[in-house]
């Protein structure tokens, strides 16, 4: 079930109305049933994977916690990791690695008689998200950072909680699980702010992201046919498409959980206002970047190792992060590129300081701040080319043709020409709000304005979503991960 579907718009109010109508004691049952139904609407057969992951991690969690011997604990942890990562590998990466191996076999003419088979099956939606969520649970128990959840139903709900099941935020058990033991009363302010957040999420998704998708898809799916301005515009648009798509999804997820009383972690904090790549990763897909920090980067040694090893750790973390996003070389290159950005930032720190002093940027903080944002944005945009391109060849072609301006041709590639203006105005509005929000607490400001004005804001937002939204079904980009 997609958030931007009528199915969800019908499903969600039923769940919320029932949720507040029944005794808090039984709410977990309702949410668990609703979550399983939510997932099964996509493909009922694949619920077995979530159920399997739930059972294994529930048992593994208890066994790890109860085992005194480290060897035994490690064994149970490995069983949990093996099952979860095994399923993830099989469904998401097997064909990719198989094809890569077959390519090598063909190229080098070795083991000619052997070819890795190709399996034609659907990638289970959200597998990367719920796998990482359950992994963090067992690892935390292994590290003695939390005790296991003994209530099987509530643990199953933790794995499958529908607002964040298929595209995050990737929750930590220490944050989410205890909330399933609380009794939330109907809270007017929470419900209202949850509804507003959902509306804003819908606006970002159906008004901005889905509109931009049309332009981006046209250009990137016919990359050899375009050069110059359309390529630049499509790449810029993709930056906002992916941001609005994913952060819109997160807002709907966080908002819908909030209505029912649950706090999910913030997933985006105005990433295009980041002043460095490091800062970007503190603002972009925060639940994933902190996951990689806690469960990959730090266990590898983080920055408390020899310098070469530190750089290796950075690269490894980002390459794995790229691979997490998809089984394709384009994602791996994108991850590696961010690894290089990070390493270069570390290596060039002194040099950059000197340059800033020389050109006088140190004494002009505002200009420095704006230049940092612009430079970071350009680096991020360059990475998005690899992320969006259909193949590595296409990505190279896009870069080659980026500044080829002979015969500009048609720039407005939207089917309905007015969509170009709507897209630009929407992006402008988004940036305006983000810049505003960067410096003041926008929601708190909204609280201070008169009640009728607040309602006008909400009604206008809903009207915009329905009238300007592209409601013909468009998947969330992050579903593929």
């Amino acid at each position, binding site marked *: 079930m997609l958030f931007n*579907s*009528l*199915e969800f*718009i*019908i*499903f*969600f*109010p*039923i769940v*919320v*109305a*029932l949720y*507040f*109508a029944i005794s808090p004691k039984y709410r977990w049952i309702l949410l668990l049933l609703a979550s399983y*139904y939510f997932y*099964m*609407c996509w493909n*009922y057969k694949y619920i077995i994977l979530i159920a399997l992951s739930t059972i294994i991690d529930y048992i593994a969690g208890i066994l790890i916690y109860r085992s005194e011997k480290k060897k035994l604990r490690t064994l149970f942890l490995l069983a949990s990791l093996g099952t979860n990562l095994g399923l993830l590998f099989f469904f998401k990466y097997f064909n990719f690695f198989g094809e890569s191996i077959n390519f090598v076999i063909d190229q080098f003419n070795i083991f000619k008689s052997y070819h890795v088979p190709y399996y034609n099956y659907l990638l289970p939606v959200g597998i990367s998200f719920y796998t990482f969520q359950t992994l963090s649970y067992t690892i935390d128990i292994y590290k003695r950072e939390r005790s296991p959840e003994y209530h099987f139903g509530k643990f199953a709900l933790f794995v499958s909680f529908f607002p964040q099941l298929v595209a995050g935020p990737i929750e930590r058990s220490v944050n989410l699980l205890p909330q399933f033991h609380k009794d939330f009363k*109907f809270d*007017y302010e929470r*419900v*209202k702010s949850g509804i507003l957040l959902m509306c804003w999420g819908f606006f970002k998704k159906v008004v901005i992201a889905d509109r931009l998708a049309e332009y981006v898809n046209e250009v990137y799916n016919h990359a050899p046919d375009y050069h110059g301005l359309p390529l630049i515009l499509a790449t810029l648009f993709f930056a906002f498409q992916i941001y609005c798509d994913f952060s819109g999804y997160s807002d709907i997820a966080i908002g819908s959980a909030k209505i029912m009383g649950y706090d999910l972690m913030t997933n985006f904090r105005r990433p295009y206002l980041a002043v460095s790549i490091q800062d970007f990763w503190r603002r972009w897909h925060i639940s994933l970047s902190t996951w990689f920090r806690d469960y990959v980067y730090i266990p590898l040694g983080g920055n408390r190792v020899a310098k070469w090893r530190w750089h290796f750790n950075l690269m490894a973390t980002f390459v794995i992060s790229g691979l997490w996003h998809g089984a394709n070389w384009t994602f791996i290159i994108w991850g590696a590129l961010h690894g290089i950005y990070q390493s270069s930032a570390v290596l060039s720190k002194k040099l950059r300081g000197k340059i800033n002093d020389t050109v006088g940027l140190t004494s002009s903080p505002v200009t420095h701040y704006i230049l940092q944002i612009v430079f970071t944005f350009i680096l991020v945009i360059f990475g998005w080319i690899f992320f969006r391109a259909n193949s590595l060849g296409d990505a190279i072609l896009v870069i080659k043709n980026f500044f080829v301006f002979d015969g500009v041709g048609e720039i407005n590639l939207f*089917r*309905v*020409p*007015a*969509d170009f203006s*709507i897209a630009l105005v929407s992006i402008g509005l988004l940036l305006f709000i983000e810049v505003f929000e960067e410096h003041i607490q926008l929601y708190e400001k909204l609280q201070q304005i008169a*009640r009728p004005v607040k*309602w006008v804001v909400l009604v206008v937002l809903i009207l915009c979503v*329905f*009238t*300007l939204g592209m409601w*013909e*079904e468009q998947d969330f980009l992050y579903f593929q991960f």
Partner: protein
Amino acid sequence: MSEKALRWIINIAGIVCLYAFLAIRFLPLFNVILLEKYIPEYWENTKWGELYYFNFIKHFRENNLPDYIEKYRFTEKHPDLQDADILSFGDSFFDFSRMTTFPEQLSDSLGKKVFYAREDEPLTYLEENKYTNGRKKYIIYETAERFLHDRFEFPQKSNYVEDNRSLLKRSLTAIRDFLFIDDTELLYSQLLNRSYFTTHIYSALSTIKFDVFGQITTTTPKYTLDYDTPWLFGGIQVGDTPRSFYYKHSQEEIDNYCDNIKKLSDSLKEKYNLELIFIIIPSKYTVYHTLINKDEYNNFIPRMYLALKERNIPVIEIYNEFIANRDKQRLYYGTDTHWTEEGLHIALSKTLQIFDTICENKYYAGIDTANDKKFNN
């Protein structure tokens, strides 16, 4: 707004949504709130052409469309599968009941029993309905141009499997199908677009979006309002997929479709002693795109005719006739995908000509068109 009021709003929203959840699963509940009722098998039960219901822009309300009539396949006149002289299979063109349908008119013209099934896989249908190999008969297979790729990209075979499942399994499947129905999104949108409470609001908003921004749904992207009647064209016909006007089919693709049609023809002959006659109904955009632009047609249908003839498959050629008559007659409704009475008549006369040729050649003993006055008029 007080907390109490917000709770009430949530409860009411929950009840309304629960109704919608059930309504798409139970037809009576569904119909209760529809302005224009949904009657199974009669999608023509609409005030305006079907394409209007994709965008609800009021400019595309084509007036004075004939009402639907009882479909031939539900009448007493419709013969039993085994008793029929001619079998016909096809999609909505043969079943379009704003006029006497094609199979019924064919039956009247030939004075023969013409069976019709709204099916595109005759081998499955015949096996499922236990059709027995009897005397030699003709089977007319109709396909809209845009569906040909879907039906003949791969060879057709019988997919009939006898249902031997236990009662428990069947019950579980029924529960599953109740909970996870197909086309949920479509049904909910129908409920939203066509209910008493929302249809006028929805139509007004769609019209404003169209007037102000020029926005129109991708399901009806091409249109013109420059003529006496509005013209709308379905999205499938104008995209760049193998179903559309602009797609450049390779010769391999054409050969593949025709090879698969030939395989179907051979199987029908071999298993049921049925001779296949093929008819492709041109897309409305193929015939009337000239109202909007001078875009070049991919020549799909003429190429199909040629390749089918190379394989000795009788084909009812209506494309040239449609092109020749498109300015003199209105062969399709402006806001509907389907043909008008005039369009149907061209197809019918071409079909009769085929049977005439066949009979002259003593190819088909079942019909004596040479002595049929209706034919010779």
